[in-house]
């Protein structure tokens, strides 16, 4: 048991980080806070990938004249470089959306936006929003 915990400590930490980010993403009302949660959520996954790549006593995967030392696995590094770029792009698009939302609604709090949409969009109130919101917490928008 102790071995299980100590041998994989990186993985436990990544799970913790991921849960923190995930919680912020689905529970916080503030739209920017959600994006910050999203960033933590994604970096946690990156940490998982990079942890796979580590080899005990290994060195950075750049050719080195010293013989006999193992290199760390370069593949997850490559994958995560791509994933980081994706993450930055998603953040940029999300922030642009938030700026537009603030312009239109004057707030970036989700609950307030929900109320405003309910007032303005009477036509859509016929859809069973009650049914949906009780079946899932992810019900948003009008």
């Amino acid at each position, binding site marked *: 048991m102790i071995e299980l915990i100590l041998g994989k400590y990186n993985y436990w930490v990544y799970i913790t980080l991921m849960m923190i980010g995930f919680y912020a993403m689905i529970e916080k009302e503030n739209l920017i806070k959600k994006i910050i949660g999203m960033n933590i959520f994604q970096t946690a996954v990156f940490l998982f990938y990079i942890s796979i790549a580590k080899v005990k006593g290994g060195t*950075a995967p*750049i050719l080195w004249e010293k013989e006999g030392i193992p290199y760390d696995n370069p593949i997850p590094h490559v994958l995560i470089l791509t994933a980081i770029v994706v993450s930055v792009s998603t953040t940029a698009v999300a922030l642009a959306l938030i700026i537009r939302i603030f312009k239109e609604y004057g707030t970036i709090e989700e609950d307030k936006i929900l109320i405003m949409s309910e007032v303005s969009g009477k036509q859509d109130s016929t859809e069973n929003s009650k049914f949906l919101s009780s079946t899932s917490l992810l019900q948003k928008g009008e």
Partner: protein
Amino acid sequence: MFDAVATIIVFAAILVLYRVIKGPTIYDRVLAANAIGTKTVVLIALIGFIYERPHFLDIALVYALINFIATIAILKYQEMGRLD
């Protein structure tokens, strides 16, 4: 030896982290964050030294060169409320 130094630097960073989280003003936080940034530069250089790989210095150099952009952005926003 160097491991011990690295550990001490991380410990120092944790001390500063208290100020980042506690605040109370933005200036405290920015200053503390900047201190952590400086420690990071040292730490990365040190890790490179421990591992005997000079490539790590490049990363330290990036921080040394552009770490303060964020600081200036934060302070400009704090003072003027905008970045442009």
